[in-house]
């Protein structure tokens, strides 16, 4: 999924709405812990499973904890993991794609084979396997995302480098006596870096989904920690008893935020790489 998200045009909801949602989410994530700190272990058994109300806009869970408050804390963890894991994945992908694109030849062929191999594996199963072998926890989750999500970045960096290599200004730089390092830092990196940055941004939603999936399965962050996946998992019991909000609210937070990130990243991609399709055959 990650690969195709990078290569295909999509429609997006309005950019301003996306910016507003993302701004609100980031603001909440930064401000709420300062203004309304959450005691992760506190329970309030006198107000369990209350439906959404002005006092608790997201309702309370079966231990009387405010769902929205915990969702914001969960979002904080998820975004943090998402960003770190996306950067990790992009580093791995950038390195491997860079090697393939710069060295070419048999190195390129072998690395592309590796990429094809990994993309033939079910990512979630692989992620589950990695986490299972390393004991669930923050590090395992990030490693699991980093090891399964670097493929698209590698492909992008490689193809970008391959196409740059044939461009005249590189020949001109070589003819002008520029050394390898100089060509790399002055000519290639400036073209490749924006693409990597874009790949990281597009990767964040995927990393968040992967993390929440693992947490939901009980294979992600420690259960007592307020993470969106853990909360949805915890909420399952209440949901079956009719208290839908304890699972649905944290999920809605994921949907809103990832949608906003994807929308903004998509707009950015169109800006970087406008594919003008003139429907014209003269």
């Amino acid at each position, binding site marked *: 999924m990650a690969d195709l998200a990078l290569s295909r045009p999509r429609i997006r909801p309005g950019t301003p709405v996306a910016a507003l949602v993302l701004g609100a989410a980031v603001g909440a994530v930064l401000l709420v812990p300062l203004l309304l700190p959450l005691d992760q272990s506190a329970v309030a058994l006198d107000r369990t499973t209350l439906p959404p109300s002005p006092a608790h806009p997201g309702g309370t869970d079966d231990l009387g904890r405010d769902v929205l408050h915990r969702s914001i804390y969960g979002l904080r963890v998820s975004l943090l993991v998402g960003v770190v894991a996306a950067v990790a994945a992009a580093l791995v992908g950038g390195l491997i794609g860079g090697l393939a694109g710069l060295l070419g030849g048999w190195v390129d062929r072998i690395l592309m084979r590796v990429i094809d191999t990994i993309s033939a594996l079910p990512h979630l199963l692989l992620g589950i396997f990695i986490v299972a072998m390393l004991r669930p926890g923050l590090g395992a989750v990030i490693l699991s995302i980093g090891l399964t999500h670097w493929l698209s970045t590698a492909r992008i960096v490689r193809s970008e480098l391959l196409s740059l290599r044939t461009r005249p200004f590189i020949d001109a730089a070589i003819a002008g006596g520029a050394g390898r390092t100089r060509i790399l830092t002055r000519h290639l990196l400036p073209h490749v870096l924006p693409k990597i940055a874009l790949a990281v941004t597009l990767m964040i939603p995927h990393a968040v989904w992967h993390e929440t999936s693992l947490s939901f399965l009980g294979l992600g962050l420690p259960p007592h920690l307020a993470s969106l996946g853990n909360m949805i998992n915890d909420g399952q019991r209440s949901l079956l008893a009719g208290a839908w909000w304890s699972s649905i609210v944290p999920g809605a937070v994921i949907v809103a935020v990832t949608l906003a990130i994807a929308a903004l990243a998509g707009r950015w991609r169109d800006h970087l790489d406008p594919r*003008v399709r*003139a*429907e*014209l*055959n*003269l």
Partner: protein
Amino acid sequence: MKNLLVIEGLGVRFRLRDATVHAVSDLDLTVRPGELLAVVGESGCGKSVLAHALLGLLPANALVTGRALLHPARPAAPGPSTQRRTLPRWSSVLPRPAGDRAESRRGSSGWSSRLSRRLRDSAEHQPEGTGAGGGGVGSGGAVDLLACGEKVLARSVRGRRIGLIPQSPATALTVVRTGRRLLAETLTAHGRDPGLAAQVAIEAGLDPADLERYPFELSGGMAQRLATALALATDPPLLIADEPTSGLDRPLVDHTLDLLRRRCDAGAAVLLITHDLAAAERVADTVAVMYASRIVEHRPAADLFRSPAHPYTQALLNALPDRDFTPLPGHPPMLTALPPGCAFAARCPRVSETCATRPSGPVACHHPLVEVPA
């Protein structure tokens, strides 16, 4: 003789993100039954757009203005289009008129035929002012091709009344079908015997054995002849041939041109779109020279080739190998930025100050080489 096709003031513009392409401007043309009209000009002057505009095949960003009246080939009983006009939309309950039988022949289970009707109703390029039913159908069975809407075009014009030999046959053939299947499909869709495929192929100069091949196995010339055969399969009263001789060697060019000529001699009409003046000289009755979206000279072929009136026509003739063999210097203007006056002024040896205004008349020139009465 009565006209078959009358085009008045045809204009086609394409809206792009940051520009407007004027592909065809103020174009007037008439085609009579039995006439072979050649529209000649350099590539990119808007010739192919003309063909697509008449068949309603332009993309959604095209803006079409003007009229193009297509008269019935034989003004007998009212054509199927006028009958169909009285039918309510999407009615699959009512008995179909006779003219519809051809297309209903192939498996029309209720669901799929309703679906296909709906699909055809949804036109990609639906001119404004087209109400429900057959708007744009004029008196005496004449159809305004630019206003009648997708439904009428799809059901009664394309293939039936106007055939098209498309440009670049290599891409115009569906890759997953053999020539025989394409031909048989077209013959069946028009109520003809699919067994005629071999005969139609021979007529177009294609060895029937080559019908078993897939398009990618055909040479450029073979693909061209298959495309020609596909257009001939429906035997339309008007045939638009868009560069039908490209990719053919000389004997096959002559074969194809003679084929078009014979159709005209038998009473059908042909609109030949080509950049090949020699081809036009060989077969055309009348020639319209197109430059930068406009017709600059429209005259009988013999007159035009003997004494061209427009400097552009003369320049084209001079470029022919059997004449001066002198190419015309410079480039035509961009269709996104046409000058307000004569578009040829920048390349014209006879240019003067008056050329800053747009010339008009059968020869669009302020300083024609010969005077041509209007």
